[in-house]
């Protein structure tokens, strides 16, 4: 929390700060939450000076209320959706993944989460011609696979290499590295120093479980706190910079042996939209000799727009996720 400092506002002089500090008012929060009249009596400072400081601090540190109709105009001009490259999932999501939202892909190991992300990344790079940042936390990113999917979608070698230019991959294997990375993305967009970040529209995080799971459990709530930090950082990246953020999460066994998304109840509330991928029917026993595609079911588990629990069938093949 920001400490009170000399020069924060014109009336905050060394003497004022000193007498405030003697009354145990050290931070902006301390100052704002204490009663101005009482404070002026305790510190024997002028009420006028204190209330002018308070006004300035409130203006500087509070969130400003936005009028609903202004917000609507802003949302209409900034929100877009990016096609996932898979028609039935696009339909499920009402167009695709939305910018300024967090979309979670949840499913058990080897269900096709990374394949979905690679397909999404290539579709955004080829069709929407937007930049993509792929954050790899578990070594699942394969450039050659990405190349194959992009080559399937593009018509010429030139387009393929142009699209590959649009996808950047960052690897980080722990939470602190990830938080640093997210902050540096925001800083790069703010400073407009790199052309890549200025037109970044999609950030894929594969997977969130790999960085968070080691911190959870045990007798301390720090892990939960760090998880909320990461959630807020991802959400502010999405909301403030109008970027679509897609994250992958694993499944764990919950009550009565039913699989549920990993990372616990607090994480459940974080994403705006959640899609669950399931391998059903042949239960992954597809033999490679007889079948060229692998069938999966995608189910919309959480959404702000669409009816939940609707599902569709998709397949994974050479061209990525389709159907």
């Amino acid at each position: 929390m920001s400490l009170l400092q000399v020069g924060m506002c014109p009336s905050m002089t060394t003497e004022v700060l000193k007498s405030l500090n003697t009354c145990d008012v050290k931070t902006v929060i301390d100052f704002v939450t204490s009663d101005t009249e009482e404070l002026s009596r305790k510190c024997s400072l002028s009420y006028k000076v204190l209330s002018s400081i308070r006004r300035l601090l409130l203006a500087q540190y509070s969130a400003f209320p936005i009028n609903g109709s202004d917000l609507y105009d802003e949302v209409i001009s900034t929100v877009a959706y990016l096609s996932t490259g898979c028609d039935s999932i696009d339909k499920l999501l009402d167009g695709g993944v939305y910018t300024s939202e967090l979309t979670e892909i949840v499913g058990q190991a080897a269900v096709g989460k990374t394949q979905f992300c690679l397909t999404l990344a290539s579709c955004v790079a080829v069709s929407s011609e937007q930049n993509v940042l792929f954050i790899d936390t578990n070594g699942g990113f394969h450039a050659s696979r990405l190349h194959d999917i992009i080559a399937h979608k593009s018509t010429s070698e030139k387009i393929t290499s142009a699209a590959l230019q649009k996808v950047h991959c960052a690897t980080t294997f722990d939470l602190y590295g990830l938080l640093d990375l997210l902050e540096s993305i925001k800083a790069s967009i703010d400073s407009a120093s790199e052309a890549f970040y200025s037109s970044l529209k999609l950030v894929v995080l594969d997977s969130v479980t790999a960085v968070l799971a080691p911190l959870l459990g045990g007798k301390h709530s720090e892990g939960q706190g760090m998880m909320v930090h990461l959630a807020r950082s991802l959400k502010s990246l999405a909301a403030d910079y109008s970027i679509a953020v897609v994250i992958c999460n694993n499944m764990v066994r919950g009550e009565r042996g039913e699989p549920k998304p990993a990372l616990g109840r607090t994480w459940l509330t974080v994403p705006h939209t959640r899609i669950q991928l399931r391998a059903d029917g042949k239960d992954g026993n597809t033999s490679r000799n007889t079948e060229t595609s692998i069938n999966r079911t995608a189910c919309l588990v959480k959404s702000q727009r669409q009816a939940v629990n609707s599902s569709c069938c998709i397949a994974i093949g050479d061209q990525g996720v389709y159907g």
Partner: protein
Amino acid sequence: MAAISETGAQLFARLGEKPSLARLNPKLIPPGLEPRPGDVVEIYGNSGSGKTELLLNLAAMCILPERWKTIDIGGLGTSVVFIDTDHQFSMLRLFALLERKVAEAIDNRTKRKGRIGDHDGGTSSTTHFNSECANQKDSDSNKETCLQQNVNLNLHSASCRTTETADRSIDEAKFSPPSEEEVETFLKACLKKLYMVKIATSNQLVITLHSLESLLASQCDISVLMMDSVSAFYWVDRMKGDGAHRQGVNQKLAFGALSRLVEDYHLVLFASKAALVTKQPQNEFSLRLDSTGETDHSNRTSTTSVKLSTDHHEFMSQEWTKLVTHRMILERHDHMTSDGPNSSYLSVLKHKASGNMYSCQFIIDQQGIRV
């Protein structure tokens, strides 16, 4: 306590009459259980149980007016401050809800147009309905509209709007549905009644709650405060602080400021609280909480009669629990039907002081929450 000095306008903003929330959504919040100025309604539920959706629905009804031109919309026409701490607020969804509600109202109005000849402006609204209904008994589709109207008209008579019934019968004949642009301009005018506050950190929340006072003092038609969600900073605040006694200090400050705003400005606060902690024994977090005595056992709602699988479980500090006057527990049930999987939602509203309970089932679709 120091004396507060305020201007007449500020006093008026503080104590001026606030509209009753009985009409907000009579099916979800029945008359008698509606929150009154100064009340705090907590909306509790798991992820995906419809908390944000419910808040958006309520917000839509708050900012829509009671009537637009000659169309009965049935909104409250009051301003709302929406504090979004979770980046969960969706303007697109709110706008879609507003559109649907207005379209529905226009539809009802158009349907009613054809059968108004027997209106005589003088009698009370309820008798209108009765006579109309008698005339229309043979038509099934009209009967439905009648029922719809019944709700509307009863509400009108309840709010003593008899003078308006006279103008209405004159207007009936020359009604033509408004154009799309007109609707959009109207909706954007409605959205002006919404004040969005997006919060990034828990410190910012505390300071913003203090700074909101100036907004509330200058806009006297704000009568509802919404917060999605109060539990957003729970873990972060617990982690912070340099010693045990500083833990959760921001929570305390934020709830103190909230309670002052609600009390001083006669607001109703609707706040969502995610079920972050369960009391199932296999959950080690709740075990730990129980052993440190931080959970409030006395406040556990006994909902055995309605059989909720996820009972309310208090995990937040006493400062918050003390504020809550009404608690609404939401739950989603997924079940298979012939058309595939389907979800229905259950809400249980409890007034803490009287112990009165009310439960209802609803679905969420494109139109929003439908009972």
